[in-house]
């Protein structure tokens, strides 16, 4: 019995069959549909590119292992996954040396310099893609069109959206984009292949469902809101779902275990953050594709998210506890949605109502009757609105204009002044004012308004009696009276500039 050499280690002694190799090669297996789609759409050049990226990734990892005198771990699959993911992010006609440079940056700089597998902060493939995007902006933003023999190139759907606006981008049918028959990097185009590949990862629980769902959900919600606000200006969420790197990023990049938070709560915040940033960059940012930058930015927050979750004394948090936050965001979301819908519905009627009020006001200040048809709206040089009342024979019966004066006691007073064709004031009507009730608001009384009737601009000293003008101010509301007089005077001036000066010329 003595010859048996017993090995002693600390319990437990049976371990699950899971290993790093199994995890990584399953991810590679999940990437196969995307690789097949890429080769189908972009030809053998795509396969060569993927091959170059993978081999150089593994090669660099091998060199680093030798240099750092570690045991050789370059065949544990993580280098292969990084290589393939990087290749799927590149246009198929990228020169090989750039792909090798990208692998170098991904493996040596982003992963090994930070300490190798498990210690890198940023997703290697993604950081390398951003490095290439910034270093070779030209080479990285022209995407060959699928099935094109002679490498014809065009901008990606998102590129078109960013440069030529929505009309051009709508030309691509959603189904084509979904299958992948549209310009873009190898892996981005066919959303179908990506979804197909990710099914195995979800089934074997190698990636969490929280990040992809919250990531895609947040992006669609964000772009959805803006799409509803201005359908002409912003593309529909479906467009954002199928085009660009959203699915590739959400399913394979954002779910890389090493660079994402460990806890569920951290992952939810991570996903939402990525979605939001992608939306912002895509709609308002400089680059058409926001997924890479969003994920890298959120990668930087991961230690913080972990620290925040760990700090809760390790209490396992279930989604229910996050209910308060989710409920709040939902309420915010729906109320915003509700407000938007009501605003949408009531936009027209409000406009009509304002018109009606204006017409009513016009009727009050003109001594003669006229029908709605007679009103004609004219604009002067700087876009000021004039209401002209026309006779049957199209001659001018009266002009009204909206002017305001901010010298009022309570603030701004806006009035609608009606003037006869020969420059005499008919009457005016106060549209809005904040004068003190009981004192300043007397400027709306007929008695005060009558004083202006028949006055012309140059014939009178448009001031209150106190400043030896013709207007006798309201008792204890001199400021309001002055403001009203000033507003009427302004109206007269504007009208006289438009109508009488032209006539005189």
């Amino acid at each position, binding site marked *: 019995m003595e010859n048996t*050499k*017993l*090995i*002693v*280690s*600390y319990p437990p002694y049976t371990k699950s069959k899971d290993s790093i190799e199994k995890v990584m090669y399953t991810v590679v297996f999940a990437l196969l549909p995307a690789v097949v789609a890429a080769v189908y759409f972009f030809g053998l050049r795509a396969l060569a590119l993927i091959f170059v990226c993978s081999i150089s990734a593994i090669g660099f990892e091998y060199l680093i292992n030798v240099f750092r005198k570690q045991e050789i771990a370059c065949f544990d699959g993580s280098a292969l996954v990084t290589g393939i993911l990087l290749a799927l992010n590149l246009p198929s006609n990228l020169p090989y040396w750039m792909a090798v440079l990208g692998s170098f940056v991904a493996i040596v700089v982003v992963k090994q310099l930070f300490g190798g597998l498990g210690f890198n902060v940023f997703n290697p493939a993604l950081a390398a893609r951003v490095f290439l995007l910034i270093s070779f902006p030209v080479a990285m933003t022209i995407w060959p069109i699928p099935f094109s023999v002679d490498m014809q190139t065009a901008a990606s759907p998102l590129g078109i959206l960013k440069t030529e606006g929505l009309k051009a981008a709508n030309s691509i049918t959603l189904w084509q984009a979904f299958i992948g028959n549209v310009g873009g990097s190898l892996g981005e185009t066919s959303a179908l292949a990506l979804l197909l590949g990710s099914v195995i990862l979800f089934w074997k629980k190698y990636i969490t469902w929280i990040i992809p769902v919250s990531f895609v959900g947040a992006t669609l919600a964000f772009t959805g809101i803006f799409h509803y606000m201005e359908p002409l200006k912003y593309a529909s969420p479906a467009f954002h779902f199928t085009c660009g790197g959203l699915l590739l990023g959400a399913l394979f990049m954002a779910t890389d275990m090493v660079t994402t938070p460990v806890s569920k709560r951290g992952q939810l915040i991570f996903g939402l953050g990525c979605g939001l940033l992608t939306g912002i960059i895509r709609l308002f940012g400089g680059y058409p594709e926001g997924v890479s930058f969003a994920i890298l930015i959120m990668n930087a927050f991961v230690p913080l998210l972990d620290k925040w979750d760990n700090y809760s004394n390790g209490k396992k948090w279930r989604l229910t506890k996050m209910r308060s936050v989710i409920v709040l965001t939902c309420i915010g979301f729906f109320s915003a949605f509700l407000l938007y819908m009501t605003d949408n519905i009531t936009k027209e009627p409000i406009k009509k109502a304002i018109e009606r009020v204006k017409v009513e006001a016009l009727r009050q200040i003109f001594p003669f009757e006229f029908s709605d048809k007679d009103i004609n709206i004219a604009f002067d040089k700087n876009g000021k609105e004039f209401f002209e009342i026309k006779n049957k024979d199209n001659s001018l019966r009266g002009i009204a204009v909206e002017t305001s004066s901010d010298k009022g006691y309570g603030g701004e007073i806006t009035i609608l002044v009606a003037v006869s064709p020969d420059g005499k004031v008919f009457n005016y009507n106060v549209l809005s004012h904040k004068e003190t009730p009981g004192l300043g608001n007397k400027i709306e009384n007929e008695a005060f308004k009558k004083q202006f009737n028949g006055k012309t601009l140059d014939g009178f000293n448009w001031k209150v009696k106190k400043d030896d003008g013709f207007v006798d101010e309201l008792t204890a509301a001199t400021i309001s009276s002055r403001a009203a007089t000033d507003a009427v005077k302004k109206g007269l001036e504007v009208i006289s500039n438009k109508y009488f000066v032209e006539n005189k010329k």
Partner: protein
Amino acid sequence: MTILTPILILSALTFILGLCILLASKKFHVKSDPLIDTVILMLPGANCGACGYPGCAQFAEILVKTRDTSKICPVGGNDLSYELGRILGIKMDDAKPLSCIVLCNGNKTTTKFLADYKGIHDCWAVKEILPSVKQCAYGCVGLGSCVEACKYDALKIVDGLIKVIEENCVGCGVCIGKCPQHVLKLTEKKVKKYHVACSSVDKGAITRKYCTNGCIGCMLCVKACKFDAVKVENFCAIIDDSKCVNCGLCAKVCPVKCIHLTEYAMASKKIAVKKTDDNCGGCEMPCSVKGLGEDGTLGY
């Protein structure tokens, strides 16, 4: 004349600002004893706590306030004490520099390994599942908890056993607490130093089974030592530093070669020793012949 204006502006500006500095330096003057700062600068700054104080700053403060000559920084040793004495104007006692010794000699050749241990490389972690990686449950486990703790990298693992590098060891004693087997001990740094490299309390017969040069408690060394500096407590010999004169007789008689000599030429020259008339045979020549210093210290 255009040259005049910049000169005027510049000098006016500097004048006013100079006044502000003068005012500020008067108002915000902080009284601090510059002596403490200089002492702090002189101390090694490792905050190792060997002097009994949590950090060098506290040590400096107390030293300057009390001017107590017995305060010693073992890391700095004699020359630092000498310097401190010169600055503080007092004669510091001789700092007895300490250094660490390992009371175990169970490396790969002398002892058999218990089992193929596959776990965390840390002495404390091993103790949870095994008495020790080696068959001797009392000796040094050899996985380096102490090596990590040592700031002066004075400890190194040599085929499964901790070896002390005398030059680097400053005697701060941080490693003593880090050893689960308590086989590290601080002793005075001497030119020649003997120590028993074993701490197994098993009976001799059992110790011999798992370690070729573990102490079997045969008492030969106790009989050989003329200064009764060696005594055996539960089957393991222990040398008392204060009495030992490093004559090396015990090492000669030890049947299992368990008493080891560490030589360190750089130790301070003054070594106190009692004069003995007859030749104890430890060092090569009789004491009377060797030039004994006036204060009875060996000359080498």
